[in-house]
């Protein structure tokens, strides 16, 4: 499959994520959209990694492997982020009985 397909899919996922973050007010959904963006990036990294390995694998056995490594890092960071973020949301719900992010602007006052 040409690399273009992966790029288009990743861009589409990313845009969906951005649009979700911008438009939704539910904290859980915003969270999921952030995950979506991260995974769009992961997809791109893996696709390019594979492409490089195809092109240079014969002479350099490790070509493209750093892309795969980055993906693992991002997954670890994303998992950590989810655990912290969900805890924040739970605390928020306990205090405000809502998970609407617009309520958070009360911090201002």
């Amino acid at each position, binding site marked *: 499959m040409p690399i273009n397909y992966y790029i288009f899919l990743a861009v589409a996922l990313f845009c969906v994520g*951005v649009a979700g*973050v*911008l438009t939704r*007010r539910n904290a859980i959904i915003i969270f999921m959209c952030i995950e979506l963006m991260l995974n769009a990036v992961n997809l791109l990294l893996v696709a390019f990694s594979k492409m490089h390995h195809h092109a240079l694998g014969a002479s350099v056995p490790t070509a493209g492997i750093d892309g795969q490594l980055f993906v693992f890092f991002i997954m670890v960071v994303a998992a950590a982020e989810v655990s912290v973020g969900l805890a924040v949301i739970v605390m928020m719900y306990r205090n405000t009985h809502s998970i609407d*992010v*617009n309520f*958070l*602007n009360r*911090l*201002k006052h």
Partner: protein
Amino acid sequence: MTQLVWLVPVLPLVGFLINGLFRKSLPKSLVGIIGSGTVLISFILSVVIFGDVRHEGFQPTVVDLWDFISVDKLHISLAFQVDQLSALFLLIITGVGFLIHLYSTSYMHEEEGPHYARFFSYLNLFVFSMLVLVLGANFLILFIGWEGVGLCSYLLIGYWFKNLDYGYAARKAFIMNRIGDVGFLIAIFMMIAKFGSVDFAEVFGKAGSVSTGVITAITLLLFVGATGKSAQIPLYTWLPDAMAGPTPVSALIHAATMVTAGIYMIARSHVLYDLAPVTMNVVAVIGAATAFLAATIALKQNDIKKVLAYSTVSQLGYMFLGLGVGAYDGAVFHVMTHAFFKALLFLGAGSVIHAMGGEQDMRKMGGLKKWMPATHITFLIACLAISGIPPFSGFFSKDEILAAAYGKNPIYYVVGVFTAFLTAFYMFRLYATTFLGGFRGTHEQEHHLHESPAAITIPLWVLAILAAVAGFLGIPAVFAPNAHWLGAYLSPVLGENAHGIELEKGTEGMLMVVSVVLAVIGVVAAWARFAKKPELGEPTGFGKFLANKWYVDELYNAVVVRPLDLLAQFLTFFDKHIIDGIVNGVGRLVQYGSRQLRLLQSGLVGGYVLLMVIGILVLFLVELFTKH
């Protein structure tokens, strides 16, 4: 002993520090003892040093204390020079200075304790600065003393600073001195540039190796400094106003010592002046013109101190005339005799003012000889001395200058001898109006009249004796050959031909007779006219012109002060509205901008994210459309 010369200026400095720092706690009697005592010890030291110096074959000694400035090849050290000229000035300054300190202990007695101590501390600081001025072995040390005496002059003129006019007089003196000092400073810079040194010995040694133009420029600039300090045209107008200070200050600073600093400086650097005939002519012309102008103004003044002030300006003019015609020792001789008789005149005037309860207007005096015999006799001696009546001291020094002036150019002589006639006239106008006739003041003043106490009369008598006999230090060759002790004494410093152009004995005798006859005519005319019937009315016609001092102050106000004032006003406006406007405008713009930008911080997370995304998109678009 010569090596300890630094003690001479340091002692008054110590007196200044003690009196100045502890002025609130010291009792008045102790202040007087410290103030006068330090100067007295300096005087004794000066006499000892003079004893060394006057021996024949004494070599000028430079006492090097420490390196003052050391930059690259330029080394200026704090060094004192002991030679015949500086030793003579040491004697004059500390001797007359001590007498005036003694006089002040009584004259200033009514001042409150702290102010009394302030007065003495300033006076001591002045003596210190003046001693540094004459002892300095290079132009920079001389300049430090030069500035120091200017500062003390300012402080003492404005001693009664609560009177606004006195404060203005002090400021005027300071500013006019500063104008001259700029010239002096530039001259020093030129010396550093051309000679690489400011040491007297080095500068005079190398003087022959540079062009006449440079020497002329340096000497003219030095002379600009001298016109400021020694009150010559065009910078003389501060001296009459300086009479705002207490009378002992006028006697010490504005008659005997500080104003002669210019003459000292030119006599000291005569090697340079000998090489610049143009400057010499300028000096002589300015001196003669100042002598004449100030004498005419003195004719119509009614304030006893103002007459003396203009007379000082006029006598300083004589000294510069002497310098300009090459009679350096004549000028220094006149500095010395003038220090005696003019200090005496001022102190006598102070004694009169003291007795009159602060009154300075001669029209309200008269007949004082009945009440104040000692002041009267000593004042008369001083008047005879300044008028040039033999055998009093003024006759010898003045005629030496006049003879040299005749040798150079008879016009100088005519101006000089006419001024001598005016001098005799206005001095005896002063004398007759004050001491002869009947008393014209109020009844209360008449009741108060008294002879001054001993602390005032003793200095008067000492100075009177000096004013009477000091002339015999310089007996002209007409009377006895080789009897000019002062000329012989100063010749190692001022050179062998510091006498100006020698005249034939017959001619010199003739000139002497002419000037004495004119002086006697002046004395008799003034005596006859003012003894019985002093002029009390307002002057008219030309007299009014003279009474208003040739309108020079008004001219300066119109030509210099007003335009500068207007310029300052314009600059104030420019600063307040344009410069400040720009600065404040920038500030206000930033404030306004921040107030607008603040609205972006809404606290809505969605808004921030949207902006971030827009930002990223913009960056992408920029990246897309820019070719690398």
